Structure formats: C-alpha cells, structure tokens
C-alpha cells in the first residue's frame, strides 16, 4: 500500500511538472486583455504539486513511525486482475488488426475457455451471437460504425 501511495504521489508530481512546464511556455501572467493561456494550468500544477508533496510528507512521517500499512490488494488478487486487464488490452490491439467485433469474438471465446473452461458449445454460441447481434445493432440500426482494422473489411465483407 505504501509503495502504491508513493508511486501515485510521484506520478501526480510528474504530471504537475509537465503541466507547469507547458504553462510557463504558454505564459501564465496577465496578457494583453486577460489571463494568458497558461494561467489556469499553471496554478493547477502548483496546487497539485503542493498536495502531492503534503501526501509524500505524511507518507514519510508514517514510515518513520513504522506505522504498519494495509495490503493494497488482497492475497492473490493479482491473478484475476491481470486476467481481466491483459486480455482486454489484447482485444484492443487485435481490434487494430481485424476490427472490433471479430476481436471481441476472439476475446470472448478466449476468456471463457481459458478462465472457466466453459463448454465449447456455449463458448462458440456466445462468442458468435453476441458480437453478431451488436454488429447488426450498431452498424445497421444505429449507424454507429466500429473500427474495421487493417484486415477486417476483407475478412467479413458485409
């Protein structure tokens, strides 16, 4: 927990630094007729840095006092979380190649088989029916197109 707290506080300082640098570039004083573009972000960055610094200080204090910290995640939580996150990232990347609905079909099938060993019949049924349904709903009915990817248009020419 402490490490995560520390990491987030440092991340916030990093973001604040990026913001302040750009704000300085844009100018953060009073311009010709009103605050310059960087005015608002500059002060945002400053306040954010102060907050993160206070957070860091209190972390340091509790570290020195040897205050025990709770676990960030319960035992063995890494595994299910990684199982949610990594295949989802995989699906996003695959979308760039073959389009969202095809990637989703692969993702659904993969997840169902790999984590819960769902029967092949159910797996195939769901990973084909759900994307098909959503494809019809979105593309044909609502006219909201989804990414086709590099090869998607050629794989499924409808």
């Amino acid at each position, binding site marked *: 927990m402490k490490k995560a707290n520390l990491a987030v506080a440092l991340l916030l300082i990093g973001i604040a630094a990026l913001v302040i640098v750009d704000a300085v570039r*844009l100018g953060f004083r009073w311009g010709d007729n009103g605050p310059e*573009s960087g005015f608002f972000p500059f002060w*945002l960055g400053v306040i954010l840095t102060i907050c993160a610094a206070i957070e860091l200080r209190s972390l340091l204090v509790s570290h020195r006092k040897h205050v025990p910290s709770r676990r960030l995640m319960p035992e063995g939580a890494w595994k299910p*979380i990684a199982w949610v996150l990594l295949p989802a990232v995989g699906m996003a990347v695959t979308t760039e190649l073959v389009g*969202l609905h095809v990637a989703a079909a692969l993702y659904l099938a993969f997840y169902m088989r790999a984590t819960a060993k769902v029967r092949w019949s159910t797996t195939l049924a769901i990973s084909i029916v759900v994307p098909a349904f959503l494809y019809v709903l*979105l593309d044909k009915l609502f006219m909201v197109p989804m990414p086709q990817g590099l090869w998607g248009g050629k794989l499924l020419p409808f």
Partner: protein
Amino acid sequence: MSDIQNLAMGLGVALQSYNLLVAVVGLTLGIIVGVLPGLGGANGVAILIPVVVTMPPTTGIILLSSIYWGALYGGSITSILFNIPGEPWSVATTFDGYPMAKAGKPGEALELAFLAHAAGGLLGVVMLTFFAPAIAEFALKFGPAEVFSVMVLTFSAFVGLGGKSPVKTIASIMLGFVLAAVGLDIVSGQLRMTYGSVPLMGGFNFIVAVIGLFGLGEIFLTVEEGLKVDGIKVHLGFRDIKAGLKDLMHLKKALIMGSFIGCWMGLKPGVATPASFMAYGFCKQSAPNKEQFGKGAPAGIVAPEAAAHAAGTSATLPMITLGIPGSPTMAVIMGGLMIFGLQPGPMLFKEHPDFVWGLIASCWVGNILGFFIVLAAAPLFASILKIRFAIFMPIIVYVCAIGAYAVNNRMIDVYYMLGFGVLGYLFKKLDYPIAPMVLALVLGDMAEQAMRQALIIGQGSPAVFFRPPIALPVMVLALTIFFWPVITAVRNHIHLPKHPPVRPHPKAA
C-alpha cells in the same frame, strides 16, 4: 399555479407513446445496469450517449434519465439478494437488507426497498417541480464571478464534507481539471500540454474517463475478491407487497427522515452517495431498537434507500437550473445535454421550456413506472447475475470498449479507457475520491472560462469573486465548508475537558 400548468404541458410530451416506450426501455436497461457490477449508472448512461444523439433531444434525455432511475432501483436488488452493492449508494442497503433476506424474508426486504425508493423519488420530484423554476429565475442573475463561486462551492463540498482526506480530494480535483485542460484552448487557440502528440490534441473526453474509471475500475474491484454469486432465491408475490406496505406504515419516521435527508443532500453536489449512509446513521441513532440494526431491521433498509433515491432525484435540480451536476451520473447526463447543444442552466428554462418540463415530467413518469417494472421483474433481473461471471464479464468489457470508441471514433479512446480503468482501481484502493475528478473533468472548461471572464471584468483582481450580493456569501459558504474539518478539529480541541485538579492524598501530606 403556472408550475402545475407547465408540468401538465411536460406530461403531454412525456406521455407520448414514443417517449413512453423509450422510458420503459430506459428503465429496463437501467435496472439491468444497476444490477450488474461494472456497468454502473454513470457508465451505462455514458455508453449510450453516442446512440442517443440520433434521437430528438427530449426523447434522448428521457432515455438517459430513465436509465438513471432504473439504476437507482436496480442497485438494491443485488445488495439484498447477493450482498453485492450494484451501485455505490446501495452499499448501506447491504447492512440490513442481506441479513433480512438470509433470515427468510427476501421478498419483504425487496418490497421495502422498492417502496422506499418510490417514496424518496416522489419527494425528490415534487421538490424538483416546484423549486426548479424559482432557482432558475434566481440563477439568471449570475455573472461569471457568481458561476465560478458556485463551482468553488461545489468542489469545497467535496473537500470539506466528502469524508476523505482533503489533500487527496484536492489532488483529485486538480487532476480532473488538468485532464480537462489538455488539448485546444478555445480562447487563445493554442494547444496546451499536448507536447506535439496528435492524439493528445483531442484532449480527454469525460465519457471515456467515466467508462474507464467507473466501469473497468469497478470490474477490477469486483474480481479481486473472486466473484461469488450464490444469491438468495426470491419470488415476489402480492403477499409481499401487502406485507411491505404494512411494514411501511410503522416505519413512517424512517421513511420521512430518509427522504428529507436524501433531498437535502442531493441538492448539494457530490453527496448523493453519502446521503444513504447519513440516513442510515441518523435512523439508527434515533431508533428505539438500535441493536436490531445490522441484523435485518426494516428501518435499516427503508432509510438509506429512500435517501439514495431522493438524493438521486434532487440531484437533477442543480444540474438543470445552475448547470452544476450533483453526481457523476448527472455530470454525464449534463454532458449529453451539451452534446445536443442545450446548455443546462437558467437559460434552458427560458429558451427550451418544453424540453425542461418534458424532462421533469418524465422524472415523475419514470419514478412511478420504474417502481412497477422493478416490482414485476425483480427475480428476473436478479437471475442475470446467475449467468457465469466468465461469460458476462468479457461482454461488459466489450460493451465498454464500444462505448469508448463511439465517442469520437478513435481507437486511442479505447486505450485511454483501459488506462482510466487502472487509474480508477488504484484511486479507489488508495482512497483518492473519483467523483470530484469526474466533475472537474466535465466542468473544467466552463470553470476556466468563468474564471477568465470574471478576472477580466474585475481587471485582474481576485476581489471580483467576493463581490456582493451573490458571489460573496457563496464564496464565504464555500470557504467555510472547505475548512470545515479544520473548524471541527479546533472546536473539539477547545472543548476538551481540562484535567481534573489532582487532590493530594489525605495521608500524603
């Protein structure tokens, strides 16, 4: 009273068959969304915004808000039957709802919850109907300094009353504003914080952020404990309705207290969720049977549920009249309004009264219809969670990805969504509040614009924010609320009893 006339006109719009159908669809979707973890109210509404844009504005907003009412109702179902709160505001329901269900009275527990929701919702809608026009009139007097001061009040409420570490809350708010500022600065035409990267030029869209933070983040939280969904079976019959109504007669106090607390808190931005906890706490304190709470006391269900629904309904009020959303879901709905080209705020009442009153009327219709729908189909909705997690989780992620992409037709938004999901999970675990960050993301541009205009009017002096008659008391109130934790700490310190004088031992002298 012209308010009633306006309401009648609005009802005429809301009860048109198309709008009615849309309301029913929205309510059903909302209940499903409320039942499923990972597709919360804010998230579900956000996903449907790109779809809703194709509809006429009134119909679209009826759909979005019906989802909201449905989610308010639906969150209780899983809290009571599965001990899994489907929504943040239904956490307090698990305290007494689940024990009551386990003790063999799930139907009654559900009845109480739904009736409490309906009552709270009705009170909220009544307030909305009769106070909204008055507040809108008042808000017409607002200039940029006043608008900015109300926003400061909003965020101060999060800091001072939010219950989380003020430093973390402020950091969260700042982060939200920073995210809102990335991209094109409308006033000067310059690119800010894009560092030459093309994707960043488009900035961060609040819909994508909400889907990631609340959707994926929620899923991560749910899986970390491993999902156990062995729920309690329930069969709702008329007997349960009668029993619930009878119980309710005895629980008038809890009901009224809960509803009023909810209404009051819902008006203040950001406190819809804490309203249910507060109502639970108050009810418990003032109840004759305190020990029963936590073991299935009916009042323990009624109070938080009434409060949650009343707060959710009255959160519409500041959104419509002042343009300040009271909760993340309201923020998303407000974003939807803006996409339609309707600027929420006092001008909306003047320029589009048919829209506003149609919306208010649909709140009436939605709350009442929703009660009957959820009553009829609660076991059906509950059985959704019986579908294996391994099946519905990836489907939820798939739908979230669709929602994220549909906003701007960019793949980068899907990646942003994943990033926000991780951020949402981390923030929840580390106790950084997410709601103010979302509000800051939605309001960021407006807040900055108001600040700039006010500073120009005041010629660079911050004193412009403290000008009477409106900005001054609002800012004073904001600062008071902001420093509230400090004030209470100082007060406690002063009132600490001094050590009693030490009497010398009789034999010691």
